[in-house]
């Protein structure tokens, strides 16, 4: 067991549970072999996990803590995603296009991630058919979430987006500064405060 990460087996167990829910047909032994390649890293609150402009091939699983993903446009930070415990994230733009990544990945609580190089995951895909299937479903899920967010901004009102957000992430209201949530929802902090008071 690696020093400083007493719960690593629990984290890997949770990761394997998550990946099995995506892949469905995965074999427990193959899954165990894969998750043992995910290594733990600690990030302090406000520490940057990955910055815009860097190339990266790393995929992450949040074991503990909370990560904010944002980009900077015309001097303003736009928050795109919050990734909490038992969720995965990866700079897919950089991984799949080979270009520098344009988002910043910041720990906004003390955070422990399990991480792996995408090439290592691909070596498992090449070795095991069920893993390759899981790899495709993982990309499809990521793609779907991104598409849904793009369309939610177009088709839902700010109020609808807010109620969807609290339905899925009520805990985040107390974990995340309101200005980040307002930015995520594409509204001003004042509008967000009014909505909170109303609901």
């Amino acid at each position, binding site marked *: 067991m690696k020093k400083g990460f007493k719960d690593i087996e629990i984290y890997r167990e949770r990761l394997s549970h998550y990946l099995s829910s995506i892949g469905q047909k995965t074999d427990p032994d193959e899954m165990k072999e894969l998750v043992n390649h995910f290594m733990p890293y600690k990030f302090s609150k406000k520490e940057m996990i990955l910055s815009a402009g860097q190339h990266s091939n790393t995929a992450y699983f949040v074991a503990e803590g909370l990560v904010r993903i944002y980009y900077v446009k015309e001097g303003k930070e736009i928050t795109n995603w919050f990734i909490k415990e038992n969720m995965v994230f990866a700079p*897919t*733009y950089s991984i799949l296009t080979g270009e520098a990544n*344009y988002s910043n990945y910041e720990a906004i609580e003390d955070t422990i991630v399990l991480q792996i190089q995408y090439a290592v995951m691909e070596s498992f895909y090449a070795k095991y058919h069920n893993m390759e299937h899981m790899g495709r479903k993982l*990309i499809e899920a990521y*793609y779907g979430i*991104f*598409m*849904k967010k793009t369309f939610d901004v*177009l088709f839902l009102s700010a109020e609808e987006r807010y109620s969807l957000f609290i339905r899925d992430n009520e805990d985040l209201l107390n974990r995340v500064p309101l200005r980040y949530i307002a930015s995520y929802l594409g509204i001003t902090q004042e509008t967000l405060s009014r909505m909170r008071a109303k609901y």
Partner: protein
Amino acid sequence: MRSAHNISEYRERVRKIVQYTAVLPDEQMNEFLNLFQLEVFPKNAIIITPKTKKNKLYFLVSGLVRNYYEAEGKEITSDIKEENSFFLNGYYLYTGLLNFDSYVTMMPTVVLSADYDELEALSAKYHEVEHMGRKMVELHYANFLISNYNQLFLSAEERFDVFQRERASLLNKVSLKYIASYLGITPETLSRMRSKKT
């Protein structure tokens, strides 16, 4: 009566395109290609309607297909598919939610289509087909990410430059209002940009 369409020749084109993504053993490639059937559409035919649950992977043999959705009473063109490209109802397949976009032909159009469940079954049967499927989804997703990046970080002029570089053939085939919508600018701005460049 002999058909004007040679499906073997069209399947051969699918083979050539997917070979850029992954190489399959002959037997598997033939099983894959045999899933594709011919469909012929007149101009303005809807290939994929909103809220459709029937899913196919389409390969565009000839013609043009516009992908659009309506928002705030306006039609937004999100893509224009040309010969030798694939398309499918990704929103439904990847989110499990009903789609609200449509795919409509802009001229008489010929496609090959394969039932998505049959493609899934073939992927479950052969690892190599699953690999090719993953690579194709990754490519599709990467293109989505690139267009999202362009929309976020490039100016209208830069987006038009990219369009001219990569999709010049569309400029003479497609009404400017669709190209303007695709670029996220007004037709007037597009006209000004075009006259400035020539």
